[in-house]
């Protein structure tokens, strides 16, 4: 198991390296000369040449990528002499726009994304899975039909549309909620909830629909399994049959998918954060893209990919723990 974990982590690291290289090539090669962008409007050719030199843009691409990688693992120093700046581990470079270390930007934005992701996840997991399991138990009932129709509706609703509707109705028309803004849970819990409730609900509407369908499907399948029949044949109470024998196998795939969705969201709910103007990692990404801030784009992409890849590893391990067939497999 330890070997397996290490190996999965190794593969994950390799995956991140490839993602890093691809992203690096695309965003450092395709757009206009970064030196020209960095220079601003009052900029002559000789000045651009100077900047190219400082940024190392004259060196071959693999050299630039190499320096970048070294920076990620060991930190690096930009420029020379009095103006040199050291960028400590893990160095993802400095924002073209704000000159802040990208890593610090990411870390300061993370709490907002985490607030959004965790809150939404709790909401959709509780609502979606409960609805799906009840639907599976009452297959064909009015509840089942209503819940599944609602789930399909939730899945079909684009996030930005939900977000706009919420803002229009709850904030503008009814005035029940303030415009969302970033507040720390530890500073003002009430304002935190007030600000987060719309993003949570927006994301949860989509995911609850997905999870209700997933949970229902898995539960229906699980209820049809032979071992559930065995459990009934033993004379176990129906509650035990459902909760112990049917629910547990049904939840294994739900848990694994959940891990990956959560991983993806921790890397930034781009649209939700942008529409609600919440300064999370997703908003950072969309701002960086708008301003062609390559170091930040690269940093966010890697950061988010890191979450996804790590979630994949975590999910595999959890899966192995949940399913004895995998755990004891040879």
């Amino acid at each position, binding site marked *: 198991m330890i070997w397996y974990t290490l190996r999965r982590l190794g593969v994950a690291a390799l995956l991140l390296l490839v993602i890093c290289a691809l992203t690096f090539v695309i965003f450092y090669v395709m757009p206009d000369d970064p030196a020209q962008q960095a220079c601003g409007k009052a900029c002559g050719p000789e*000045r651009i040449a100077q900047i190219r030199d400082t940024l190392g843009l004259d060196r071959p691409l693999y050299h630039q990528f190499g320096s970048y990688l070294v920076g990620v693992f060991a930190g690096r120093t930009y420029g020379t002499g009095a103006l040199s700046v050291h960028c400590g581990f893990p160095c993802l470079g400095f924002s*073209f726009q704000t000159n802040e270390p990208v890593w610090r930007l990411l870390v300061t934005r993370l709490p907002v994304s985490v607030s959004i992701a965790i809150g939404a996840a709790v909401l959709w997991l509780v609502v979606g899975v409960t609805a799906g399991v009840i639907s599976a138990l009452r297959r064909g009932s009015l509840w089942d039909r209503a819940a599944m129709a609602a789930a399909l509706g939730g899945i079909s609703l684009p996030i930005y549309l939900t977000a706009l509707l919420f803002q229009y109705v709850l904030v503008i028309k009814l005035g029940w909620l303030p415009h969302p803004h970033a507040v720390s849970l530890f500073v003002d819990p009430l304002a935190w909830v007030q600000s987060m409730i719309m993003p949570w609900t927006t994301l949860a509407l989509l995911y609850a629909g997905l999870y209700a369908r997933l949970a229902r499907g898995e539960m229906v399948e699980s209820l049809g399994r032979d071992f559930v029949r065995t459990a009934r044949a033993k004379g176990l109470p129906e509650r035990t049959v459902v909760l112990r024998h049917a629910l547990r196998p049904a939840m294994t795939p739900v848990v694994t998918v959940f891990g990956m969705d959560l991983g993806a969201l921790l890397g930034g709910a781009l649209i939700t954060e942008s529409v609600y103007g919440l300064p999370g990692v997703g908003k950072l990404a969309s701002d960086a893209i708008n301003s062609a801030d390559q170091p930040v784009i690269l940093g966010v992409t890697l950061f988010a990919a890191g979450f996804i890849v790590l979630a994949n590893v975590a999910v595999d391990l959890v899966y192995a723990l949940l399913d004895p067939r995998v755990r004891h497999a040879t």
Partner: protein
Amino acid sequence: MASRTRTASLGASLILGLIAVAGCGGAHGGAADSQAAGTHRGGTLHVLSTIDLEHLDPARAYVTSTQDVVRLVYRTLTTYAAAPGRAGSSIVPDLATDTGTPSDGAKTWTFHLKEGLKYEDGRAITAADIRYGVERTFAPELPEGPPYARTWLAGGASYQGPYKGGDLAAIATPDDRTIVFTLNRPVADFGSAAALPMFAPVPKDKDTGVGYDSRPFSSGPYKIDTFEPKKQLTLVRNESWDQKTDDVRKALPDRIEIDLNLDGSVVDQRMIAAQGEDANAVAFEPIGPASVAQVQTDPTLRARLITGESENTRFLSLNTRRGQLGNVKVRQAIAYAIDKDALRLTRGGPIAGDLATTILPPSVAGHVDGDPYPSKDGKGDPDKARQLLAEAGVAGGIDLTLDAPATNGGKAQAEAIQSSLAKVGIRVAVNEVSGSSYWSTVGNTAQEHDMVIDGWTPDWPGASTYLPIVLDGRAITKQGNNNRAQYDSSAVNSRFDQIAALPDANAANAAYGQLDGQIMADAPVVPFLWDKAAILVGPNVVGAYGHVGYVGRLDLVSLGLRG
């Protein structure tokens, strides 16, 4: 990377697609006219901004929005008067005792510092600190600032900044309170240029190179408490600042919180609702078109709407070096065809400003009224345009490519231009350029297309940093080009030289006004809007007026809160 990026504030504003061109400025004389309103000290002023602050470092601050803010934090040799309307365009002393003394035919300028000037840590501000501040602008690592020091100071062409090159001989500090600049040419306007942030003091021991950007050392009434780029800048009182040395800044609130990078419609809605803390808030940017209706139909909201004049003209540059645009008749046809009213409507209608008919806006001295390409209500004259195209031999229509910033506002303007030109058979393809790289792209003659959505604000009031920069053919450079029309008329060029030699500023301004008309006849650019800014302020805010030096934004140094 030890670097940063461009200047203009384009990238940030999704809603307005501002064509804010950096500017600053001044003219001689005129004392600060202190505002009557609001003498209550205290409270927290909130500023809600849809854009970011680009470069607080005085060597790099070249965007009007940033200059409006940094005036709270550091002081310069001279500065704008804190006054509404055109009074705001006069230059007044700040750190210096006057607006500078020229000698040697305006090739040498001497400034004396006031007494009792202190930094936030209580130490004295010295002339050497100002010299160091100016020298920093030569460092290639800090590239974004205005070019004037580099082009004017003697020996500046080869100087690499204080990090590599030691001191610049062209700046002398005979004592701690005297600074002398030696120029390589006569510059009558140098006292106005000294209002630029680059003439702020930077203590050498506090200089952290590129890192200085995130926390410049305070010489003004406020110092930086926290700064999270794209999120928030918090200013608190600098107790070492002495009101007696400063005629410009009021420093009424105890604390100023500037929220950055907010959504435009959210800011509008918050300012309209003005609940809670928002009563003590002001918007930083003009209201969006979508909020105009709500404000205009509500008298209490209208009372909270502050309209400020600017010196910004928006125009369409026609690249005279490309294809059919070399033909003056084609350019004139375009000038006739453009529906200026539709263009203004994309920005919110009359509230966004007046339809422009000349390059120099009315707020700039020297402006002469005129409209060489008239049409009813500014909606364009397609018949006249078609006639001119026929005369040019291209009645069958032509294809042109328009460079436009990839912002909602930029796209809307591009579509309006597309629509008006389509009526006369000119097919326009739009080349969207990412907002942040817009100016560097259109400023690169190899990347510029046929037409550019353009505009200009002078770096200080007056025509001298206007027409010569935008339309002098000899100023065309491969990169960082400001003459997007690539207009190169020897008659106009020699006229620029003649005017520059005029000793009298008023005569020069009048001459620029005449020249404006002469250039307009050639139609290298099609002006369509003289900007105004309509900004909402909270009910609890006093002392609000739009400042012409900051393209109509509120003058932050005068704002206060009701007690």
